């Protein structure tokens, strides 16, 4: 049985978060009533002409920078083909002189996937097929809405460096984070802000030549992407194993039956007859455009993860890891945009690992509120927990209150009755419990650790949870050794 390796290249179309379309001033918005955001330009009416949206160029350059591409002088080309969702029956796109060339994307696990190019183009309208179960092949007729026609897109084409379905998913996930972080996209795959097509092929392990590839379309979620690639790889391997060839074709992923299907075969491949768009002038990434592209953009997710990890190295290793691995916490915190909060807390003196844990677990429950947390207050709370003033449970409750209503952690703790129990009262509690549980105390003194929980529990119950568990345990330990 031959070993096969998977080769995947991904084409991701990203709708840019501009206010207006690429070539006209119509609103760029999802979900509005059909054909209400149209004008002579995006409808391709006779006599209309395109004019490039400056912001779209800035965002495209921004994406290129985030993907480590080289920005270059570029022109637009016409890609000629007929389809009802195309108002001009040609798409204004970029061909052999795209705005961003080369680059790479670093995944969470540190591996890199190469980027061929990231170019600009206009989106098409939306077609709804009526009759025949909504599928093209059996449809009676179609209805077209041009609201989406002319929305600016950046098409990001990866090199065929992806070697598994899981890695493909990780690539899109990271790419999405980057696109959201740049502000270029809202990343809503379910709204079509991000669309993925996969080019999948297999080859015997170690082979130099690429196998025949199939393009897989209709991948509407990360899950679909992973499942579809998995299916397609298996399908191709099965064909090769049975001595057949893989036909180069476009296949449509069917989420319902979990398979890819070949589309009606076309007599000939499309001849797009690309030629330079005569209605538009070339784009040169001058200082003004590059400055605007860079403005207000922070570091990308990979860089932020790196910085957060650096922060953790500085502090001591935590005694226990109950709240999930550090790596996962780092990913979560950056993904939710809470890394600035953690940095701020640590700068104000909080313990790095504790800050990370609380941010990844508790604050993450309500990321929008968490983003508004004052890092100083957060740090103060964490210090209260670290010093033993508050138990973990109490700390979490204060944090929740802090996120909902803001305020001062100490005052919140007091209002919740989480005042520190004074040492004398605590000592007398402890002595009381020792006195009323002589047998358990003897066993504990003899070295039985398990019974410590029992004694601790007695104190906690007696103090109605107000006692600080750590301090109680320390008190017992101190008496034992006397």
């Amino acid at each position, binding site marked *: 049985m031959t070993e096969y390796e998977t080769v995947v290249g991904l084409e991701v179309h990203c709708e840019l978060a*501009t*206010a*207006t379309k690429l070539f006209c*001033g*119509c*609103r760029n918005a999802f979900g509005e*009533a*059909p*054909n*209400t*955001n*149209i*004008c*002579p330009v995006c*409808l391709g009416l006779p006599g209309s002409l395109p*004019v*490039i*949206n*400056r*912001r*779209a*160029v800035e965002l495209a350059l921004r994406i290129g920078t985030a993907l480590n591409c080289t920005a270059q002088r570029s*022109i637009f080309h016409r890609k000629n*083909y*007929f*389809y*009802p969702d195309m108002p001009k029956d040609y798409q204004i796109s970029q061909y052999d002189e795209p705005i961003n060339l080369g680059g790479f994307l670093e995944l969470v696990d540190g591996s890199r996937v190469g980027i061929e190019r990231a170019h600009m183009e206009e989106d*098409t309208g939306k*077609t*709804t*097929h009526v*009759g025949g179960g909504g599928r*093209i092949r059996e*449809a*009676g*007729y*179609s*209805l*077209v*809405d*041009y609201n989406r026609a002319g929305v600016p897109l950046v098409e990001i084409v990866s090199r065929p460096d992806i070697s598994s379905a899981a890695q493909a998913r990780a690539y899109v996930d990271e790419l999405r984070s980057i696109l959201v972080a740049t502000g270029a996209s809202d990343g809503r795959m379910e709204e079509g802000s991000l669309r993925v097509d996969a080019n999948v092929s297999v080859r015997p392990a170690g082979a130099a030549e690429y196998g025949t590839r199939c393009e897989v379309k209709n991948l509407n979620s990360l899950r679909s992407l992973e499942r579809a690639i998995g299916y397609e790889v298996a399908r191709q391997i099965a064909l090769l194993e049975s001595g057949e060839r893989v036909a180069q074709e*476009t296949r*449509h992923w069917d989420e319902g039956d979990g398979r890819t299907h070949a*589309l*009606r075969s*076309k007599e*000939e491949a*499309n*001849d*797009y*007859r690309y030629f*330079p768009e*005569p209605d*538009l*002038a*070339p*784009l*040169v990434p*001058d200082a003004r*455009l590059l400055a605007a592209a860079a403005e207000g953009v922070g570091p990308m997710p990979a860089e932020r993860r790196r910085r957060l990890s650096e922060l953790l190295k500085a502090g001591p290793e935590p005694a226990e890891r109950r709240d999930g691995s550090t790596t996962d916490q780092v990913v979560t915190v950056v993904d939710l945009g809470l890394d600035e909060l953690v940095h701020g807390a640590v700068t104000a003196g909080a313990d790095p690992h504790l800050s990370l844990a609380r941010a990844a677990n508790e604050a993450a429950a309500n990321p929008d509120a968490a983003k508004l947390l004052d890092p100083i207050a957060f740090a103060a709370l964490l210090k209260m927990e670290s010093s033993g003033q508050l138990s973990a449970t109490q700390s979490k409750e204060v944090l929740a209150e802090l996120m909902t209503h803001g305020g001062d952690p100490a005052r919140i703790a007091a209002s919740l009755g989480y005042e520190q129990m004074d040492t004398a009262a605590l000592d007398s509690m402890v002595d009381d419990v020792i006195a009323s549980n002589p047998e358990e105390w003897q066993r504990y003194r003899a070295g039985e650790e398990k019974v410590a929980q029992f004694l601790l529990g007695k104190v906690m119950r007696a103090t109605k949870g107000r006692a600080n568990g750590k301090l109680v345990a320390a008190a017992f330990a101190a008496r034992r050794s006397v």
Partner: protein
Amino acid sequence: MPTPILVGAEPFSVAGGPIGVVVLHGFTGTPQSMRPLATALAAAGFSVELPLLPGHGTSVADMVSTRWPDWSSVAEAAYGELAGRCDRVFAAGLSMGGTLAIWLAERHPDIAGIIAVNPLVDPPSSSFRDMLSGMLEEGAVSVPAIGSDIAMQGAPESAYDASPIEPMLSMFDGVDEIAARLGEVRCPVLLLSSRTDHVVPSESGDLLAARAPGPVERVWLERSFHVATLDHDAPELEARAVAFVNKVAVPAMSETERLISPEEVRHVARLARLALDDDEVGRYAVQLSAILEHVDAVRRLDTADVPPTAHPFPVENVLRPDTETLSLDRETVLAQAPVAEDDRFRVPRIMGEAP
């Protein structure tokens, strides 16, 4: 006072493109029998001359004094008319019209091709001619008609109801003449033969196919009788005639190799979503080839160090701000839509997925 021409029997003439076709009707027939073919040829862009032969199309009495030279000279004149203004001339005919077409081709080697429908090529036997001569001596002027041998119901041929004998014998003399010179028919021939022909036996077609030295394409018409141009197979007959002219004329048209083939025209028309019928494909292949030949100078330029110019002036970074402007009113736009439904543009089912 001359007898008026029977309705539908008028001659037919169309000034079309640079390819011409002489179309000839048969003995005791009229242009009516050839109209559909002539119309099809004209629609294909060819120039067409369909004369009314002397003595025909009015009354039998007018025909009695006419002879083969009368008809052949009219055919000759029609040929001359077209040769004067066309680059290439073809000859087409039914029955005796086919005989006349062959006669023209033998006289004019520059005729590009012949379309012969059930032509009379094999001279009738001397016994048959003797019989006719005998009838003449006994005072008969004509014999019963040969017209309207058509399988299809309700498609009568406008023809005389009697065949005058002397003209018929003259016609046979003409057939003798052409039969003897079949070796001079060097141009391509499209021979359309009805399987069942009650007027002209199949030996005529066989003889032509055997003796003409040029390429002969023989097509059997299964559902038609003698006047096939008005019968069941007429549409096929017309299509084949047009295709034959296109096929034969095109390579002869340009001296250089043909630059765009009908196949390429079909391919380009498909890319450009232009529905073209076969005639148009043929015609455009000729015209587009001429244009390509004309622009060929550009192809052969030495432009090694010359950059292309996409824009007359080098402007850059023509951009607009990302601010919203007024959109169109949907009702105004949809009012102009050929078919709208549900606030959207409706189209028939789409066969493929978007690229």
